[in-house]
């Protein structure tokens, strides 16, 4: 079969990391190609090369057999490629229709916008996706799932012959996912080539014709979906058995350190659980299920409304992160760039930011003490940086994450909350972070691990709580649970 679009031998380097090294992807007309790989395998970079956001250092892109280069998303769009990004690029204050046709509004004579045509076309797209909304509604009024559907409608509106979908179902409900699948089947009939990126294995086997697997920036295999099963696909993705990737250590957990009873707050409702010393308690669930909100209530960043939290029998109800830290909770944010680190400050200054009270005398920072502490954690966590004075924004994701964890631990917490600790971290550094977490566990630290990555949460945790719509929807023994069970609890099917 002739490929619509093919990328071969693609290489792309960033300072300090080779993101793509001989990557390959073919898109065939009327077929859905799954692009699989772990976080950090290079899928997103590959998509950015394909749509011209990045230029490859080496390799070839051919469209209908002709070599092409894309110097920006506009060029790839003109060539018939559109992409549905994982992060939504929508403007809340504009209507649905305005969002869909932003920058290419249908016009009447004299350059006036043809509003009637714009709303009608947008309504037709929404109807096709089975979204029960008028395209005149404000984007900001829509729940996340429907915003994602609008993003999909926008991609459809380009009449592209190649559509890339990056984790399109992450925020969707089950019926929304089914509508999307129906549209994908229609597009396939029309001869459109689709690239489908998802972590959800069931979806791959439901909707995709072929699979391309990437690992560490390299092409691993291309195969028909019918020739694979879940197990063989996972093996292709990780390149080793799961047990090897997640170095679980068996450790007897100790006494109860934290108890949470009937805790409610913004985005969470009636949460109860216990946490033990030397235990890793996993929290899984879909995006927006309230996991991060729960952690932020515990930490004091989001307001608690009802319920009790006790740390070693003492009630703690922080109303500001400073109180959470003082009470003995460390929270490592899921969003390093957004609210985890001050990227313009040095590695050392970031590491010590939560501990400056202990490192100062009468308000003056003891530079020697600070340096000693930062050096200790840099060595203990193997943070690779040319110097402690290096701006932390210049470090790789994995090293940034290790420094962020160091910041939390320098404040000597009793409970360590890690929110998506391996997001945007390459595979090698991931393993190091897992080993660190296990080391804390063996030292008797009480650890909460929030993760959307099912293999990770299953491979690392002792117990797993699953959340849905702000409530706990399931509790499992991690050594004895399947992805299907977790997913069923996450989407609320039993």
């Amino acid at each position, binding site marked *: 079969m002739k490929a619509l679009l093919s990328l071969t031998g693609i290489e792309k380097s960033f300072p300090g990391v080779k993101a793509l090294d001989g990557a390959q992807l073919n898109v065939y007309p009327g077929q859905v190609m799954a692009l699989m790989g772990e976080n950090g395998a290079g899928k997103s970079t590959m998509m950015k090369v394909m749509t011209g956001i990045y230029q490859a250092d080496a390799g070839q892109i051919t469209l209908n057999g002709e070599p092409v280069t894309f110097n920006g998303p506009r060029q790839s769009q003109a060539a018939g490629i559109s992409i549905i990004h994982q992060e939504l690029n929508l403007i809340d204050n504009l209507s649905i229709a305005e969002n869909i046709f932003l920058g290419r509004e249908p016009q009447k004579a004299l350059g006036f916008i043809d509003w009637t045509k714009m709303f009608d076309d947008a309504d037709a797209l929404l109807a096709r996706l089975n979204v029960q909304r008028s395209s005149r509604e404000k984007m900001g009024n829509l729940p996340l799932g429907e915003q994602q559907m609008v993003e999909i409608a926008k991609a459809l509106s380009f009449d592209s012959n190649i559509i890339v979908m990056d984790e399109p179902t992450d925020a969707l409900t089950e019926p929304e996912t089914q509508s999307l699948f129906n549209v994908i089947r229609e597009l396939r009939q029309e001869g459109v080539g689709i690239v489908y990126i998802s972590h959800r294995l069931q979806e791959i086997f439901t909707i995709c014709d072929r699979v391309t697997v990437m690992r560490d920036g390299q092409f691993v295999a291309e195969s028909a979906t019918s020739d694979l099963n879940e197990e063989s696909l996972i093996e292709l993705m990780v390149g080793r058995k799961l047990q090897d990737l997640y170095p679980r250590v068996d450790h007897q957990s100790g006494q109860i350190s934290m108890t949470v009873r009937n805790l409610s707050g913004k985005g969470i409702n009636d949460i109860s659980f216990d946490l033990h010393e030397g235990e890793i308690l996993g929290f899984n669930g879909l995006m927006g299920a309230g996991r991060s909100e729960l952690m932020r209530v515990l930490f004091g960043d989001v307001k608690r409304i009802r319920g009790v939290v006790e740390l070693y029998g003492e009630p703690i109800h922080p109303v500001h992160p400073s109180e959470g830290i003082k009470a003995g909770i460390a929270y490592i944010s899921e969003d390093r760039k957004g609210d985890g680190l001050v990227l313009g400050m040095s590695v050392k200054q970031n590491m010590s930011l939560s501990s400056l009270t202990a490192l*100062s005398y009468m308000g003056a920072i003891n530079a020697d003490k600070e340096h000693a502490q930062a050096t200790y954690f840099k060595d203990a966590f193997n943070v690779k940086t040319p110097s402690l004075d290096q701006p932390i924004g210049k470090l790789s994701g994995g090293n940034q994450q290790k420094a962020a964890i160091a910041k939390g631990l320098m404040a000597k917490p009793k409970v360590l909350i890690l929110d998506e600790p391996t997001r945007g971290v390459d595979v090698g550094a991931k393993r190091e972070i897992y080993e660190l977490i296990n080391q804390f566990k063996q030292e008797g630290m009480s650890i909460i691990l929030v993760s959307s990555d099912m293999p990770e949460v299953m491979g690392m945790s002792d117990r797993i709580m699953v959340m849905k719509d702000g409530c706990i929807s399931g509790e499992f023994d991690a050594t004895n649970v399947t992805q299907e069970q977790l997913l069923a609890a996450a989407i609320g099917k039993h």
Partner: protein
Amino acid sequence: MNQTVTNNLTGLKMFEWLKQQKALIALLVLIVVASLLNDQFFTTGNLMNILRQTSVNAIIAVGMTLVILTAGIDLSVGAILALTGALGASMVSAELPLIVALPLTLLLGGALGAMNGLLISKGKVQAFIATLVTMTAIRGLTMVYTEGRPISTGFTDTADSFAFIGTGWMAGVPVPVWLMLITFVLIWALLTHTRLGRYIYAIGGNESAARLSGINVDRVKIAVYALSGTMAALAGLIVTSRLSSAQPTAGTSYELDAIAAVVVGGASLAGGRGFIWGTLVGALIIGFLNNALNLLDVSSYYQMIAKAGVILLAVLADRKANA
């Protein structure tokens, strides 16, 4: 071979360092050019004159630097200068001992600044709007209080001692210049050696991350605006002392000069980036430029245009460097 590599490395480091010191280089170029064009320029008398004239703007700009480092702005400093100057003049003319009057005036400036901080942190009003409001209100209060007329410090002994702040000399250097230097050293120490200084940079760099790191962001902001108000009050004392009277319109548009000094000094209005010495250099550039143009008989109308050009150049150079 190795030797060359090391030399190149130090050369590279020098180059990097020089790139950071654009403002300082510009200042030196300005001084050299002005000295060549006019032999009155590079004389002790004129240099001290420039430093004294610069001191008021520089002192306000110190407070403004702190505010801008937190990604804020303070438009009310000129108005605070006027009100505190007027109250200071009243206290002096009432022969309140200076040991009470001076701290009280500074405290008042601090309190007015803290009010800005409260509005911005607790009231969640944007800094630009909050200080625009207080600027207007404080300006109005000053007019009400002075009834639109200057307040003389009087002809008492207290008034004579008070005049020392603005007109006195110590060790061959005008007192306002000493005050400026002390202020810069203190705030330099604050920014580089204390927790508060670190927090200021952290908040400007990433406020959410600062909050999640346990920093009481509200408290730091209130402190920063209070310091800015205190600096404005100190400038108010100097201006009032120099003229032996408080003008109700004193300090008009001084906030803009202070912002200009900070920006020319290389700080980013987006917060988190900037150094206190840069602000000093920025204030000196503006001061030296004004003086040189005066000596060259350039009309004050053209001086404004020249100042605008310098600010624009500084910002463009900065953008290039960070692109």
